């Protein structure tokens, strides 16, 4: 059987990669992709702990369901925002959108 910590490490790696993407990419959509990766890493952890620690309860599953919902919502709104932003600035490169600058 697969040891629990394998999953955790994979999830951690996935999360770190996502983090790197979020911090380093220029294109907003790409940043969103990074966020997705991080969310998935979290979900892996949730389900893993559910499977290994409390498979008879539903807590872990319920949580990950919520995470799915949140992810869907976040992506839809995020992409809509990007499209609106693109209409406005003709770009979605985050570094070029710095109206909040001093």
């Amino acid at each position, binding site marked *: *059987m*697969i*040891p*629990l*910590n394998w999953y*955790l*490490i*994979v999830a*951690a*790696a996935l*999360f*770190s*990669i*996502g*983090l790197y*993407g979020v*911090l*380093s*990419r*220029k*294109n907003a*959509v*790409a940043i*969103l*992709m*990074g966020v*997705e*990766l991080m969310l*998935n890493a979290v979900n*892996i952890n949730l*389900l*893993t702990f*559910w*499977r*290994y620690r409390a*498979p008879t309860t*539903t807590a872990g*599953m*319920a949580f*990950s*369901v*919520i995470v*799915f*919902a*949140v*992810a*869907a*919502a*976040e*992506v839809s*709104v995020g*992409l*809509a*925002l*990007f*499209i*609106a932003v*693109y209409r406005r600035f003709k770009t*979605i490169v*985050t570094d070029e959108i710095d109206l909040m600058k001093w």
Partner: protein
Amino acid sequence: MTAMQIVFLITAVVTLFAAFRTVTTPNLIHAALWLILALAGVAVFYALLNANFFAVIQVVVYIGAIAILMVFAIMLTRREMRDRGKQTSGRWWWAAILGAVFFAGVTWMIEAVALPSQPTAAVPASSIADLGKALVNPNGYVIPFEVASVLLLAALIGAVFVAWTRHNS
């Protein structure tokens, strides 16, 4: 080294590589496709965890909806097909360091604590049914469930509103 472990390792490698390409490839469409591959790998993880339901949901929601929406968004928000110039901002090295540190720290912690290698029990056959019941059970997760539904509704409306073309402006 059982068959499961082999499958797991293969999946892990594929997933992580795909994820890595996702965040590094300059071509955004490719990035999206790599993302899909990574997500599919995650789905396989779920399957390995005897969470078929979540595996399928993962495919439906992430690949079927989110990833395709992203492809769509990418196509909509770029003026020409190809990207030229590098897609990473100037602070990528700092980001890399951060990621590495984070990964190192978390791994160290995971290794520091003793974790079981065997599940405590088998997944009951009725787990999905239980989940369903729990989601609508007042003593269970009905409140979070409802909140999530409201959130989705809000997201729906918000998305429509935000992306609406205002003819006057």
